[in-house]
């Protein structure tokens, strides 16, 4: 009880009320430092295969010999189809599948994201497992064109050869579906949507042949032309749309088989040379986080992950001595492992950060980092709420118990002389009497309607760019982006000047504080919830928003307000996107077009986070700071 009383007495202590910004700062610093510690050996773990049934690399692979001759022939066939129209290509591929005694079918799909037209065809064939009862299936994918737009000659040829080879085995306990998708992102998406019957029937054909529940998918990206190309490493891509990841067991199995059985090095996140040093691990992790945070489809496998189908893409990189047969044997061994699965992949992690092909951090270790960032906003929000309930925002309440004169009293006696003596109230308790400053006894009413409406309005306002960016035809998108580059940073200033100039709408300083409190409270809540779904996005947005926890409404301090405004303008979402594109050398128009495609085709919701979490928080912060300029 005594402790509680002490704590309650501390409530009014001005030192406590000065604490939150420092606390927020400490949280942000610890949060970022936490992330930087993760690549160390003490905080990360070696990967391991958790599902016993997988038994990676325990089987002999027989994909050699005359299969190589057949592979070369199929590669010539594929190369001959490269310039042919889509219909003819589909027919030729279907014929090859049918000649293997497989059931083959094609699927047409058309997407029209923001006025563009994506039309293509998927070809797929089902190998009915001799001992399977059509309840489970695995998928082997080769997109006709890979993510860079190159024709996937060797990948498609390998799928055709493996289909012929797999057909001869009697040990498959699951059906195997061979899918040659028209492209790397929309094609697999159309196929997997139709497989689960969640496609729009007007634009996408239904699948005439289906099999059981998909248990896993492996995509091959090997664009070597008809004369082949020996590769050095396998680049394994594992992240799906919206930052969802495939089960770590699948990744580990692939690495285990490629590394241990075939002697092919594995790499991830475009780290072509990885020396397993701290810097390399950190760089891999940050690249992984960036890719996860953006939530875009990174390969043909990405579309499968939202349907809880674990999927990875094997991409060949570099010049080395591994040939298509090594890749084929890797895929064979991988399918033999997946064929062993008795249950859906569930044993290992779904939330992880990979630092190296053999090292990872699990969610329990990295999650506090984003949570601390989110908490820093919540702390600021609570501090602002408390501050808004105080009677006089400008002068701190003197502590009646304090024996020291307040610093203001010491430093500025002139102000002290002008000030009225502090009003005191006499309080009786039994026989005791005491004098308490009246300010402590008065209750300050908070006017909540205005800040609530303002916060709601700022979130509603975010819907406008969300709609515009996803539905403008691609030719106008760069113009829209440039327009928003000017408008978006200026909007808070315009709003602030407008609010200041029209007296009925002018928020009081308490209302201004409450606006900031509410928007920070929402930001903290959103980010904490988001951290459990897409850690990287929450962390990135949290970092970019971190100044919002410290900017304040400073009436009368024009220079400080202007500095804050400049800082916030630099951290405007549109400015940040533009700067990031410039830094990584990406074409900003392309990024926006892809984002719109993601919204319409892949079900991407990074835009929602940007325009409904980040932008409103930034806007409210900007208005609050801007009020300082116009007060």
């Amino acid at each position, binding site marked *: 009880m005594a402790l509680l009383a002490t704590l309650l007495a501390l409530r009014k202590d001005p030192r406590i009320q000065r604490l939150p910004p420092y606390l927020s700062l400490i949280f942000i610093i610890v949060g970022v430092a936490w992330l930087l510690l993760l690549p160390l050996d003490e905080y990360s773990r070696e990967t391991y295969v958790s599902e016993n049934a997988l038994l990676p690399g325990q089987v002999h692979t027989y994909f050699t010999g005359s299969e190589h001759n057949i592979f070369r022939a199929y590669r010539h066939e594929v190369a001959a189809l490269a310039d042919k129209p889509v219909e003819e290509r589909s027919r030729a591929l279907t014929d090859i599948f049918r000649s293997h*005694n497989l059931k083959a079918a094609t699927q047409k799909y058309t997407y029209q994201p923001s006025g563009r037209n994506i039309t293509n065809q998927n070809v797929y064939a089902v190998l009915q497992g001799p001992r399977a009862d059509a309840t489970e299936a695995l998928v082997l994918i080769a997109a006709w064109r890979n993510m860079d737009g190159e024709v996937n000659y060797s990948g498609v040829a390998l799928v055709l050869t493996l289909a012929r080879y797999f057909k001869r085995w009697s040990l498959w306990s699951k059906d195997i579906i061979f899918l040659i998708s028209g492209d790397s992102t929309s094609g697999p998406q159309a196929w997997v949507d139709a497989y689960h019957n969640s496609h729009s029937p007007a634009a996408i054909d239904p699948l005439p042949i289906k099999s059981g529940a998909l248990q896993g998918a492996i995509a091959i990206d090997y664009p070597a032309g008809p004369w082949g190309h020996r590769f050095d490493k396998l680049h394994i891509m594992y992240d799906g749309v919206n930052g969802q990841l495939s089960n770590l067991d699948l990744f580990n199995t692939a690495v285990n088989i490629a590394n241990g059985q075939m002697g092919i090095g594995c790499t991830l996140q475009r780290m072509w040379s990885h020396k397993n040093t701290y810097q390399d691990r950190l760089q891999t992790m940050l690249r992984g986080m960036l890719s996860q945070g953006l939530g875009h489809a990174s390969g043909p496998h990405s579309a499968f992950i939202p349907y809880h189908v674990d999927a990875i893409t094997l991409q060949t990189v570099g010049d080395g001595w591994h040939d298509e047969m090594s890749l084929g044997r890797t895929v064979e061994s991988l399918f033999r492992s997946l064929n062993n699965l008795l249950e*859906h992949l569930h044993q290992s992690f779904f939330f992880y950060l990979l630092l190296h092909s053999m090292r990872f951090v699990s969610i329990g270790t990295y999650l506090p980092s984003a949570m601390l960032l989110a908490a820093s906003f919540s702390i600021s929000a609570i501090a602002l709420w408390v501050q808004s309930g105080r009677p006089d925002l400008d002068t701190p309440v003197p502590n009646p118990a304090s024996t020291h004169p307040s610093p203001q009293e010491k430093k500025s006696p002139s102000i002290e002389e002008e000030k009225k003596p502090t009003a005191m109230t006499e309080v009786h308790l039994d026989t005791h009497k005491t004098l308490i400053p009246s300010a402590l006894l008065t209750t300050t009413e908070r006017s909540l309607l205005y800040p609530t409406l303002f916060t709601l309005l700022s979130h509603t306002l975010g819907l406008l760019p969300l709609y515009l960016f996803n539905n403008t035809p691609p030719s106008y998108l760069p113009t829209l982006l440039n327009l928003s580059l000017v408008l978006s940073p200026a909007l808070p200033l315009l709003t602030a000047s407008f609010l200041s100039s029209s007296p009925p709408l002018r928020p009081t300083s308490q209302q201004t504080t409450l606006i900031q409190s509410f928007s920070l409270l929402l930001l903290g809540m959103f980010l904490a919830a988001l951290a459990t779904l897409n850690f990287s996005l929450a962390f990135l947005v949290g970092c970019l928003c971190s100044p919002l926890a410290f900017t304040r409404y400073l009436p009368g301090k024009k220079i400080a307000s202007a500095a804050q405004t400049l800082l916030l303008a630099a951290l405007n979402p549109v400015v940040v996107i533009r700067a990031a594109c410039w830094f990584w050398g990406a074409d900003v128009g392309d990024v926006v077009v892809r984002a719109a495609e993601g919204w319409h085709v892949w079900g991407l919701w990074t835009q929602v986070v940007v325009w409904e979490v980040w932008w409103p928080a930034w806007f409210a912060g900007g208005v609050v700071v801007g009020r300082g300029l116009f007060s």
Partner: protein
Amino acid sequence: MLSFLPLLLFNALIACTAARSDYHERLLLRPLPQSALLASFTFRSNESSGAFEEQNFRYFPRSLGQILQHAHTKELHLRFSLGRWDASNWGQMPWNGAREGGTGVELWAWVEAGTEEEAFSRWLALTNALSGLFCASLNFIDATKTIRPVMSFQPEGDHHNMSRLHLLHGTLPHEVVCTENLTPFLKLLPCKGKAGISSLLSGHKLFDASWQTMSIDVRPVCQKEGDCAVEIEQGVDMVLDLERAKRPLDNPIPRPLPIEEISCDGSKPYNAPDTCYPLTRTADSSWSLNEVFGTSLHGACPLTDDRDGNSHTVCINVQPEREIQVKTAGEYDESRSASETLRCYKLPVGEAFDLVLPEQQMTTGLVLPTPPLYAARSINGHGQERGSVQAVIRNPSTTDAVEFIYLESLPWFMKPYLHTLRAVIDKSEGNPVKETYYRPAVDRRRGSHLELRVVIPADSSLSLTYDFDKAILRYTEYPPDANRGFDAAPAVIRLLSPRPPDRKGVYTRTTSLLLQLPTPDFSMPYNVIILTSTVMALAFGNIFNLLVRRFVGADEVPSRRGLRTILQGKLERFKSLVKGP
């Protein structure tokens, strides 16, 4: 193109029954497209009902007969199946679906009883006894997996007192049929797999088949009033992949062939010693009984009744010009029928018999009968909360409408919403569902049972969909492989019109479904246990400490810290050091 031998004819050959005790067996081989081979084994024996009642069994298996008598079962149908019938390539099923089961185990029987409760207890006795007899988990057919179909099944036998008979039906879609089910099956045969066509049935080949089904059908057959017999028909049907089946048992690995053995397409511009576009084989591949079944046929079963001209046991349905070499040291006989597309052989007794078909380029093919319906069923949607089932049933006939009963038996944790049932015909308006029978599920007591009478017009397809909710099971109700999902039994489709040719009926079954239920993380209970134990230990420790410890005020302790006490203490310590611990 040759006209295909109507199966009816073949069925008629075997269907002649008499009320006397006899035994027949027959093997029908039929090459299917894509180098597949259908092998249908049929074993039929009779026992007059009088002898059956007196437990005077001759060919009828005693073990099964006694079970049937004990459980008062008048008619029994049992199916063990694996894989799926590929109707688009293989055409109509060999017995029109009447002897072929859905994936897993399916059992239905007419049980004689006065009340429903009595019938159900006898049904349980039957399933438990059969479970022991066939080494299958048939005892897991409990109330939740048992339904009483109303329209889908009709008795095949002649029964006097239909009012006292109760039809019960149960399925185990996840039961994996294997060798331990085949051994007891063969033991029911008079020749026990030692002679006759049953000597070809080995587990290695049977369970490597692309599709296989084992069936047992027991029914009473009456020629005229009072002249009745109990007939048992055992069948094994399988589709073998010839390429796979021909591999020797000691080297089953399909290694890539040497390049010399692959025929390459020389017309391709890139054809080179290291580049080979494989040609598809057009000739019918060579095979022999010994190669395909892995064992040789040890002559005829001497118990076979060879009166009535039923002695030609092995039949093969091929084009007349297909070359067949018979290899046997004994006497055999060949007969041709059905415009020479059916060749039957009388087996020698006690001598090995083999049929060898060399590789031959065929100019004609066999016409496979089109099945009356194509059915496919799948689960749509994703997520752990709800889903929907879609069954697509296509009527390939360009002239006749098809009327059928669609039977769906769902586990209780899959809760369908009947108001979401949509039956849409792609080419016409109107409701194709004529009659609905629905018995909703009761949690943990019984599953849903849905029967629909549907008509599909000619040359159109029906899409039947309904939504369902997934129940959350109790922690202990999950099987050990909970994350695999739960199997939902195949839907059974019984044809009403065009009228089936015989009493067995025409059936089609869909594949089973895998239903993903919300599954807890099973390590969680252990975390909870560990956490609770820690809290308990802390609380218990503190309270125990407070209760047991005697608190004494500091000033109440007698002060005995004199020189003597100190010395005593030192001495004790020294002693313990010398003596050791």
